[in-house]
Every structure is written in C-alpha cells, then in structure tokens.
C-alpha cells in the first residue's frame, strides 16, 4: 500500500501527540505524587502547581490534584526536584511494574 494519494506533496506535518512514540517507555523512574503532602490536593484549592509549571513535556495536568500522563512522562524528575513540599518522589520503574503485575 503506497502513498500516491497522500493529501500533501510537501513535508506538511499536522499537530498531534506522540511524535516520539510512547516516550513513557524512556523512563527509568516515574514521579509519584503523595497527595497528603501536595498543597492543592491537601487544601482542595488552586495553589502551587510548580510541577505543572516546570514540566518540560506537558504531562502534568493543572488539576486538583495534579495528575501525570505516564504514557508520555519521560521521568526527568524536575517535578520531584521543584516540588516545594517534597510531595513527589521518583520511584524505580521496575518497582512500579512489580506492583502492577503483582
């Protein structure tokens, strides 16, 4: 099956996620949010959102509580480093997989 009928004759890219595939597979560690320490989660109000601000990959949602899109999170750890209440810890993927499978 060829591309003869493709709609563009030029290199014309349309917006969409996952250009790099499932970048979540790059991770060695994943960020896990402790909702008892996370300020917006604890207080139930719009507050902080440092993790949302500093995420280079737009995988942290600006919600109460913030949520992480693990399909694309690369596990850089910036959110964990910048969280003012140390609510986010980086947990080894191998541990997470054990938990998921167990």
């Amino acid at each position, binding site marked *: *099956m*060829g*591309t003869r009928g*493709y*709609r*563009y*004759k*030029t*290199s*014309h*890219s*349309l*917006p*969409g996620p996952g250009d790099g595939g499932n970048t979540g597979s790059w991770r060695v560690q994943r960020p896990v949010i402790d909702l008892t320490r996370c300020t917006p989660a604890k207080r139930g109000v719009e507050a902080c959102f440092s993790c949302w601000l500093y995420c280079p990959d737009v995988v942290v949602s600006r919600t109460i509580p913030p949520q992480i899109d693990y399909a694309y999170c690369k596990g850089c750890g910036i959110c964990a480093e910048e969280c003012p209440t140390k609510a986010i810890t980086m947990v080894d993927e191998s541990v997470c997989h054990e938990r998921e499978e167990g």
Partner: protein
Amino acid sequence: MHIIETGNVAAALGVQLAGVQVVAAYPITPQTPLTEKLSELIEAGEMDARYVPVESEHSALAVCIGASSAGARAFTATSANGLLYMHEQVHWAAGARLPIVMCVANRAVGAPWNIWNDHQDSISQRDTGWIQIYSCDHQQIIDDTLKAFRVAETTSIPVMVCYDGYLLSHTYMPFAVPEQEMVARFLPPFHPSYALDPDAPANLNTVTLPEIRMDVHGEMAHGYMEIRYLLQEDLRNAVQVVEETDAAFQELFGRGGVPLVEPYRCDDAEYVVVAMGSLTYQLWDVIDALRTEGHKVGVLGVRLYRPFPDAAVAAALQGARGVFVMEKALSYGYEGALCSDLKSALYDHLPDKSRAPFVKGLVAGIGGREIKTVDLTDALRSGLAGSIPGPGWIGIRL
C-alpha cells in the same frame, strides 16, 4: 505600448505587471539596475509591493521563501556569485514547492572574479528542481517573466528566467509592454494551496524520514523519497504547462509560440547549431551567411532548459547529419551540460541510432569574451568541412 529600454528594465516591468507582493534582492552586477527600477516603481507608488533590502543573496531567497510560504507572490533577482551564495536556498525553494520567480542576469562565476556574461551561474543550478527558461531578447524577457509566475503557480515549482548579463541586461531594444488589464486576464492573484495560517496550523519542511510513516489521521504519509519523486514528476509534466501557458499568452498578446525550442531554417537543415540566450539570434546572421555559401544549416534555440524538452529537441534534430552545440558554460571535467543533455535526448528518442547526427560541443564567450560573428562563421565553416581546430573554444587565445 512599445518602449526602448534595457533588458533589466524589461524584467522589472514584467515583475510590476505580475503584481508581485514581496521583492527581496541584494545588489550584484549586472542585475543591479533591475532592482533599482523596482525600488523606484515601489517608492513612486507605481507598484504595490514590499521591498526588502537584504544583507545577502542567501537572505534574499530566504525572504522569498518565507513570504511565499505565507501566501505572497515573491520575486528576487541575482547573478553569478550571488546565485551561488543562495544555492542552498535554490534547492530549498524547489523542495518546498514554492512558486517563486527569480531573474538571473547571467554572469561568469569566480574564481577569478569576472563581471561579464556567460552561463556558468544558472547552468550550475540545473539539478535543483527549478524550471529554467533562457530569454533571447528583451521582448522574451518581459514576456517570459510574466509567464513564469503563471507556470510557477500552476505547477508549484519555482522558475528561473535567465538572460545574458550586459548583452541583454544593459543594452537597449524596443519591445512591447503588455497592458495591465490584459495581464489581469492572464495571471490571476496568487492563491496557494496552503499558506501558513494559525487557523490551520502545520509544521512545514521539518525532518522527513527515509521511510513512509503514519500521520495523525491514521493515513500513511510520504517519506522523503516520495516527496522528491513528486517534484520530479511535476517537473517533467511542467513541459506541457509551459506550452499551455505560452499558448494562453499568445492568444491574449499575439506573441510567443516558441516555448520549448525556437528553430530557424531547420526544416531542411543538414547541420544545426544549438544555443541558448542572445547567442541564438547572433547565430541567425551566421547561418544566413553560410546559407549563401550553399550550406544547409539552421539554428535551434533552446528556450526551456529545465525540465529538458528532450522530445522537442530530438524531434528538431533527427533529420540532421550533424549538430554543433555552442555553449557559454561547462560541466567542468566533461563537456557542456546542454551538449550532454542533447546527446542523451537523441539517444533516447531516435528510432534508428545508426542514423544519429554527430554532435560536437563548442564553447564560446566564457567570462564575457567577445563572440565575433566572423569567429563563429569561421568555426562553423571548419566544422562543416570536417574538423574544428583545437579544443573547440571559440576565440581562445592560448
């Protein structure tokens, strides 16, 4: 309206009539009067375009690429080393399928420095995927420039209109200037299939993989190879577009009819001289003289060089016994590019190769060396007698 003006002004008037919206150019001899004329027209309010005085030729074509990508009709002009400086962009414009038009006032390239006419600058761009047209006089310059915009916008391929530096750019000839109202019927406003638009965002000309790949709609998109193939396919089909555009122009303006090749006394010619640009018409005098001596000779001017009109060239030459290709450039290390292309066309199209004409490549006018009609006549007389003396560089003084 008929006027007597230079080739550069003829080109400028063509640009004005075409309703170009963005002009970007960097001065280089012998193109400069063209850009000066455009500046004058724009500043006087006689041309509604934006003029960008860029700081290099590479930027001149970059401005055109940006402007054309955003939906404006764009134009630039250059010569020689200026064209070479923008070479990367020349490839880019073709690959991006942008209908930019560029006039090239042909000039020799350095090293060493030389400001006079030959074709090395534009010939060296023949692989880039641009349509290349060689104008032989001022009327063709203004008409070809106008036609170029329509051809470019029909094919989404950029077009280079080439004319001899000094010999055409700076000399005065009478020519007809088309009426603006008539031009409007020939060339509609530019409506690209896509122009950068926040309402329909797209990322243009990013890295494109060797292999095909799925897009966001789940359809298989081209790889780089398919995109380049489509350029080649559309370029080959552009021969027909050039012919159709010329026919439409001829219907409105009563001029043209030689979009691919321009034959002169070729019908019964046993020997044909092939050339491009102003040399073509100079050869008409040579051929007339040789005809009085009894030689059956003709001239074939090649007007469209890329895409190469191989079928038309072969058809014009198939009855000849011999062909002399006279060029102002070389593919160094082998022979003139037109000579090679022509031989290839004969090889592909002649049904009986045992009756193929001989092809002899000649070089003339390199670095603006004056091409004297008497030298041309002598060279051809020798050729017709069976041998061209020396390496076939006419007028060389080693």
